[in-house]
Every structure is written in C-alpha cells, then in structure tokens.
C-alpha cells in the first residue's frame, strides 16, 4: 500500500553534547531532505538538552570498514603499546606529565 515515492530516506544523526566535545552518533531517522532531517533530529534526539550542534548524513553516504577486515585493520596496532602514555613508568617525583 505504501507507494515508493512516499518513502523518506534514512539519515544518521550525530550530536555534539557540549562545546569542545566531538559529534557522536546517536541514532537515525527518516526525513525528506536535510533541513527536515536536522529539525527532526533536534526534536527526536535533543528533547532533554542533549546537544549544542547536530550533523545529519544520508545513511547511504556512509562507507564502513568491513567487519571481516577487523583483524587486518586493527590488530597491527596491538603491539604498538609504546603509543600509549601508560607504557612509560616515571619516577614518582615527576608528578604531572
């Protein structure tokens, strides 16, 4: 019964919860255009002052890494523990570094 032309595309919604933080994915919604998507995102995802800024992105525009590639994409970083500050033990005298 629902005719093809009445379907609104899916948008992914990203909200910056506070100034200084990055936008975080919060969910998705349907809207006919970007203006409506932003308005709807405001009403759907920030009814309790959850945000100061909104991004919307057509869901179909997102390219994702394949879960099957998880090993080759992310495992190589496994043994580079020296990238993390906790790798380095400092004498107690050095307080803030």
């Amino acid at each position, binding site marked *: 019964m629902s005719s093809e032309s009445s379907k*609104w595309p899916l948008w992914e919604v990203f909200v910056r919860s506070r100034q200084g933080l990055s936008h975080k994915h919060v969910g998705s*919604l*349907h*809207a006919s255009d970007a*203006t*409506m998507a932003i308005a*709807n995102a405001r*009403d*759907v995802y920030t*009814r309790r002052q959850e945000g100061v800024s909104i991004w919307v992105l057509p869901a179909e525009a997102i390219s994702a890494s394949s879960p099957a590639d998880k090993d080759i994409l992310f495992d190589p970083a496994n043994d580079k523990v020296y990238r993390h500050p906790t790798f380095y033990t400092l004498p107690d005298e050095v307080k803030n570094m």
Partner: protein
Amino acid sequence: MTKAQHFEWLLSLADDALILGQRLSEWCGHAPALEEDIALSNVALDLIGQSRAILTHAGLLEGEGRDEDRLAFFRSDREYRNLLLVELPNGHFGDTIARQFFFDQFAMIRYGHLAQQTFDLEIAAIATKALKEVRYHAAHSAEWMIRLGDGTDLSKTRIQESVDRLWPYIGECFEAHPILDAAITSGAMPDCKSIELTWKERVSAVLAEATLILPTDDWKQVGGRNGLHTEHLSYLLAEMQAVPRLHPDAKW
C-alpha cells in the same frame, strides 16, 4: 491602561497560545510521520508552556486568587479572548500547517515587540523566552508551506485551499480593539498597521517560494477578542474542561 484592561490583554495573549496548543495536541499519535508527530508535540508543548506563564502572571495581576488552572478550566467560551483562527478545527495536515504558519508569523512579530517593551517587564521576560520557541515554530511551518506548495499537484491544490479557507480569519490578528488600543497607548504593543505590514511582507515571501497565491479578499471574521467565537470553541472547552468541572474541589 487600567488593571482590568491589562488583565484582559494578558488573557488574549495567553488564550491564543493555550487554544492553539490544545488543538495541536490533538495530533499526538496521528501525524503523517513519526518524526512529525514529535515535532507537532514540541510546538504544542511550547505553546502550552507560554500560556501557563502568561495566565499565572494575569492571575497575580488580577489579585483574586485565580491561578493558571482556575483561569484555563473555569472560564466559559464568552470569557475566552483568543483569535478565531486558533480555535478552528485541525482539518488535514495542510490546514493545520497553514493555520500554524499564519499564526507563527504573527506571534513572532508580536513577541518581538513584547520582548522590547517596558510597560510590563514580566511579559517582556516571558516573550524573550517565547520568541526563541516561536522562531523555531515559524521555520517549521514555513518549510512545510514550501514543501506542500511546491511538492505534488495534489499537495499544491490542498494547501492553496487551506490558505484560502483560513484567509478570512487573518484580519482579526490586526483588528483594532479597545483593549488592544489601551495596550498600544501605554506602549505595550505597536500599532496594528505596522504588525500587519511586516506580517504581509514575510508571509508573501514564503508563499511566493511555495508557489502559492496570497488571497486578496479582505473580508474578515472577528469576535474572538470580545468572546464571540465560532461554533468550535465551546466543543473544545467542553472537552478540555470536563474533568476539573466535574470535580471542582479536586487537586490533580
């Protein structure tokens, strides 16, 4: 302006918001899309919030111990001061949007002035908050006017019909009235003509973008500010007021 006039004037502001909020809340659960259901409820919530603040202020000014609920639930249709426009039934989504669009543009200009005036500082504070809300409402309704006007042939026909149907109720927004005159004299409101000019300018711009025609007929339906309403208001009030009137001593 006398205290009685001041009180009546506040009622007219509050009743516009309350009755339209009540009408919009009827949409809850029935809108064309889930997202739009949430949007319409948001607008309704803002309007009800505005009416509560103004009614409370009016009750305190009157000094007879009437709070927001006493004023909302225990006045008859003859004592309601809202525009006829806001009490009209929702009709289809286009009717609701056109009514909202016309009112939002009016409310935005009116709150803009109210936020600036110094005759009633409480109202200035309420208007400052309301203005942010109404700007958002106005964007929402204007965007829909454009989508429906410049959407399909069917939607264009329907929304143009809505515009034409509602047009006779627009004049009342800018109609002179003794209470309003008193508010104008004391500097609380600008004269009606200047509001009307700004309103027409903004409305025309949106309608042009929506490829819709602004009616030129200047016949107007008035009476709301005097408590002489359409047949629709007493039904609305009967529904809204039924429970508190059945239990007049109850607290909820």
